[in-house]
C-alpha cells in the first residue's frame, strides 16, 4: 500500500520496540514472577482477607475520589473556560500543582493540614470529623492527586463547543439549565468520562501521599500498593507480584469497559452506513 505520509515503517517500528521495552516486558516480568513459585502460595496471598480488604478500599476509594473529581473538575473547567476574571491564569496554573508536586510532599502537607492538630483538622475535630489517619484522609489525598486529570481533559472540549449550539437551544425555548443539561453536558460527557477514568487510574496506583495520611491500619486503611511494598519488605517477591497482577488485570478490565462504552457511543453517532 502506498502512503502519502512518510515514515510509517520507521515510526511504527520505533513505537513497537519502545512499547515493548517500556510496557510489555515489565508486565510480562510481573506475570512471570507471580507464577514463579507455588501456585498455591500465590492464590493464598492474593485471596487472603487482609489483601481482599485492601482491594475493596483501593478500588472503592479510587472510584469515589474520581467521581468527586468529576463533579468539581467539571465546575472548575467550566469556570476557567467560560468566564474571564482577574486571577484566572493563576487559578489555571494552580490546577497543575498536584501534577508537579512529589506525592510524598503532598502526603506530608495534607497530613499536617488535616491531622487533629493541623489547621483544618483542628476545625474539623471541633465538629467531630476526623480527616486524617482514616478512610476520609485517603479519599482527600486521592481527590488531590486526581483533580488535574478531569480539568485538563475537559478544558479543550469546553472551549471547542461552539456558542451557536447554545444559542440555538435558547432560541428553541430551552432554559439555561435545559441548555446545560441537554446540550452542553452531553457534548462534554465523553471527555468527562475520560478524565474520570484517568483520575481513577492515577488514584489506584497512588502510594506516596497515602502512606502518610492513611495511618495504614490492617483491614481498615491499608491500600493495596502498601501491601505490595509490605510483601517486598518480607522478601515475598512472588506474593508482591501476585497482588500487583490482580490490580493490573482489574484496572485493565475497567479501562477496557470504559473505552468500549466510549467507542460504542462514538460509532453510534459518527458511523456512516
Amino acid at each position, binding site marked *: 500500500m502506498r502512503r502519502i505520509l512518510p515514515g510509517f515503517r520507521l515510526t511504527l517500528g520505533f513505537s513497537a520496540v519502545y512499547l515493548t521495552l517500556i510496557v510489555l516486558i515489565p508486565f510480562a516480568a510481573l506475570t512471570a514472577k507471580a507464577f514463579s513459585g507455588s501456585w498455591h502460595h500465590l492464590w493464598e496471598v492474593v485471596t487472603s482477607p487482609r489483601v481482599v480488604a485492601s482491594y475493596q478500599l483501593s478500588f472503592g476509594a479510587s472510584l469515589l475520589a474520581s467521581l468527586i473529581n468529576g463533579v468539581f473538575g467539571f465546575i472548575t473547567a467550566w469556570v476557567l473556560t467560560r468566564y474571564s476574571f482577574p486571577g484566572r491564569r493563576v487559578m489555571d496554573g494552580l490546577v497543575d500543582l498536584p501534577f508537579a508536586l512529589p506525592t510524598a510532599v503532598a502526603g506530608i502537607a495534607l497530613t499536617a493540614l488535616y491531622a487533629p492538630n493541623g489547621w483544618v483538622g483542628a476545625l474539623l475535630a471541633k465538629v467531630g470529623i476526623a480527616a486524617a489517619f482514616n478512610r476520609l484522609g485517603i479519599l482527600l489525598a486521592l481527590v488531590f492527586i486526581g483533580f488535574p486529570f478531569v480539568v485538563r481533559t475537559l478544558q479543550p472540549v469546553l472551549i471547542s463547543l*461552539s456558542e*451557536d*449550539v447554545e*444559542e*440555538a*437551544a*435558547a*432560541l*428553541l*425555548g*430551552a*432554559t439555561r439549565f*435545559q441548555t446545560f443539561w*441537554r*446540550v452542553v453536558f*452531553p*457534548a462534554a*460527557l465523553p471527555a468527562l468520562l475520560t478524565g474520570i477514568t484517568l483520575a481513577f487510574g492515577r488514584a489506584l496506583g497512588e502510594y506516596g501521599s497515602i502512606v502518610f495520611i492513611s495511618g495504614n491500619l490492617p483491614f481498615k486503611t491499608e491500600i493495596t500498593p502498601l501491601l505490595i511494598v509490605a510483601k517486598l519488605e518480607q522478601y515475598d517477591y512472588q506474593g508482591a507480584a501476585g497482588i500487583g497482577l490482580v490490580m493490573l488485570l482489574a484496572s485493565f478490565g475497567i479501562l477496557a469497559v470504559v473505552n468500549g462504552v466510549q467507542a460504542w457511543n462514538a460509532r*453510534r*453517532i*459518527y*458511523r*456512516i*452506513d
Partner: protein
Amino acid sequence: MSIRIDGLSKKFGGHVAVQEASIEVGTGKLVALLGPSGSGKTTLLRLIAGLEFPDEGRVFFHGEEVTQKSAYERRAGFVFQHYALFQHLSVFDNIAFGLEVRPRATRPCKDEIRERVHCLLKLVQLEPFAKRFPAQLSGGQRQRVALARALAIEPRVLLLDEPFGALDAKVRKELRAWLRRFHDETQITSLFVTHDQEEAFEVANEVVILNHGHIQQIGAPGLIQREPANAFVHDFLGLDFQI
C-alpha cells in the same frame, strides 16, 4: 407577521457594526440582507432575532415592540450558517428539541410530538433519516434538519444566517430553489443573510444592501439592478460593464 426595525445601532467595543438601520418587512415577504463580509448583515439579523441587543433603536414584530424581549419570547425561527445541530441527538430528537423543552403545561404529548416531527421531516424531505445523527448527513441535509428544527416551534418569522454559505455550488442552487418554493407554500415572513448577490436576487422579493453597517439601498431585485442608489451598490453588483 411583519418585521419593522427602527434606527437600530450596535457597537462592539469601538467598532460600529450596525448604524441607524431601519427596515420594514411586509407579512409573507422573503427579504435578503446582502453585503460584503463585515458589512453588519449578520449582526443586524442577530439583533432582530434577539441574540444581540441594540445600543439604540427598536424592533417590532407585527406592530408589537420586542426590543427588550428574549430570543425565545420573540418566537423567531433561526437557522445558523454552520447548522448548530445537536451532535449527540438524532435528527428526530433535534427537531423535537423545541417541543421537548417546553414546560409540562404547554408541552405536547409524545404522540403529538412524534406526529409534528414526522410532518416536518416530510416537509424538508428527510423522512428516511429520522434515526440518523447529524454527523451521518450531508451538508444540505443538515441544513434542512436545522430548518425543520427552527420550524418546530411554529415561529412567527424565519431568520436565516447565510443558510447556504457552507454548501457546495450544486447543492446551494438546489436548496435555494427549494427555499423559494418552501416560502411560496408557507408564506412565512423570512429574512436571510447572504454575501452572494445571485442568491439574493434569485430568491428574495426584496433586497437590502449593506456596507460598513449602513443600509445602502432597499428595493426589489429588478429595481436595484436598474437603478443602483450609489457608487457602492453599483460597484458591489459589478454593473460597470453595462455603461
